[in-house]
């Protein structure tokens, strides 16, 4: 893969679009789960609020400041998890994590089908310094859903 193609893959249209105009920003009200994400290395911050009805994530919103990758990741994550059962969402969390931390030599992203639009983040695996940007929202979500209740997660 050429250098410029790597960069184009990372900053593809879908990611640029969600980076510029993130969806589901704000605070979910009422909300049953919340967590703060923080990357002390770069200063990215994320406040995630959720409403879980029974077993399903009925609503999810975020507020934060970060780079295009972390903003787009939070935005696309909210779209991907809204309306889905928590167990499925946690499965998606693991799949996303595997996607962005996969060996850069792998040609096709694993689980492209299960990941849907999230497969757009496959390019992140070629940029080890940017993995934390893409995964901050997901780590925050996982923390919010922990049974002991949430807190602040940090990635660095």
């Amino acid at each position, binding site marked *: 893969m050429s250098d410029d193609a790597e960069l184009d893959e990372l900053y593809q249209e879908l990611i640029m679009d969600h980076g510029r105009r993130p969806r589901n920003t704000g605070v979910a009200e009422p909300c049953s789960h919340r967590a703060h994400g923080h990357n002390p290395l*770069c*200063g990215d911050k994320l406040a995630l609020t959720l409403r879980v009805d029974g077993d399903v994530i009925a609503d999810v919103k975020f507020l934060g*400041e970060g780079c295009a*990758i972390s903003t787009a990741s939070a935005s696309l994550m909210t779209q991907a998890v809204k309306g889905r059962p928590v167990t499925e969402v946690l499965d998606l969390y693991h799949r996303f994590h595997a996607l962005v931390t996969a060996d850069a030599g792998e040609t096709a992203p694993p689980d492209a089908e299960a990941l849907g639009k999230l497969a757009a983040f496959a390019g992140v695996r070629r940029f080890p310094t940017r993995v934390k940007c893409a995964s901050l929202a997901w780590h925050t979500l996982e923390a919010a859903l922990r049974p002991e209740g949430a807190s602040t997660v940090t990635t660095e």
Partner: protein
Amino acid sequence: MSAFDAAALRAEFPVFEQTIRGKALAYLDNGATTQKPRAVIDAVTRFYAHDNANIHRAVHTLGERATAGYEGARAIAARFLNAPSPNEIIFTRGTTEGINLVARSFVEPRLQPGDEILVTGMEHHANLVPWHMVCQARGARVTHVPLLDDGSLDLDALPGLLTDRVRLFAVTQVSNALGTVNPIRALVAQAHARGIPVLVDAAQAVAHLPAAALDVQATGADFVAFSGHKIYGPTGIGVLYGRSEHLSAMPPIMGGGDMIREVFLDRSTYAEPPARFEAGTPPIAEAIGLGAALTWFMGLDREAALAHEDALLARATAALAAQPGVRLIGTAREKVTVLSFVLDFAHPHDAATFFDFEGVAVRAGHHCAQPVMARFGVPATLRATFAPYNTEADVEALLRAVARVRRVFTE
């Protein structure tokens, strides 16, 4: 531009014999660490290949050579700062350890509840957190000299802050995030007039200021800390200068071999400084490498080299300041090496990834100076930092990189 031959200087640095993603390396992250000239790499290699032994112990030839090299480096560091005696030079792991040593050994024992440590609004975390720690332990507090909008110190506020509760004024000579050069001589004079000792964080100053500005007998600083790797030397080695009357009254904070006079089973007595503060086997090769780096640096035509560096900074600053959507962070009149900026069309981390594809290495982040970021209302900045081996081509590469980011993020 001066007649300084940057290309010849650059040729002394093996790291530039490579391309990054097919592009010439425009290394503008000198504030994080500088590259190493062959003279330093060779000195470290030569030590391991010919002279390696422990110091201060062995009677054999290699031990003598290693000791001579290590103590020779101390003498070179003393000459670099114009310290009256090499015994006022303590080798540390770096600036951070030097400041922590002063915090634990000089400040903490004399700190009473209600006392103050005065810092400034532009300090690196290394010159904040150690003071937070000792103040927390002793019920004292950290006060600070605020910053003006251009990133210089609000000197009008200083007299009111130099209270009779202040036990130390800890101040950086050059801001790592803003590039501001502080008037150290005047600051020390004001503090001393109130009987307050001064610690100078010289991490970003040593490689970018003329010798007179670093002369401890001229500035009157009580303590000066710097790191070898920011002045063309190895990592893992630094210097803490301390005036001998302070050092001789300070207790050790680490015990072990080489820092003692006599050891019994139930007690020990301590060596005189500097050995008192250098427990255990020190980073010998690194100290010798630092000696080589300082010798190399003092051997440059420093005035011409720094004038060249300043001219590159001025050119890059003017070019970026003229562009829409670019905000410079830190515009003080007295500045060196640092060009900190934000782009209103791209986050610093996105920009830095694109920069890397142009071969341009800059720092993106908070530069371990979160209070500075808060003061200017930004989470992070892009920071280009210049050194004498940089060239016009590096400035061009930086401007090309900014143009590319602008194209991608505003199209």
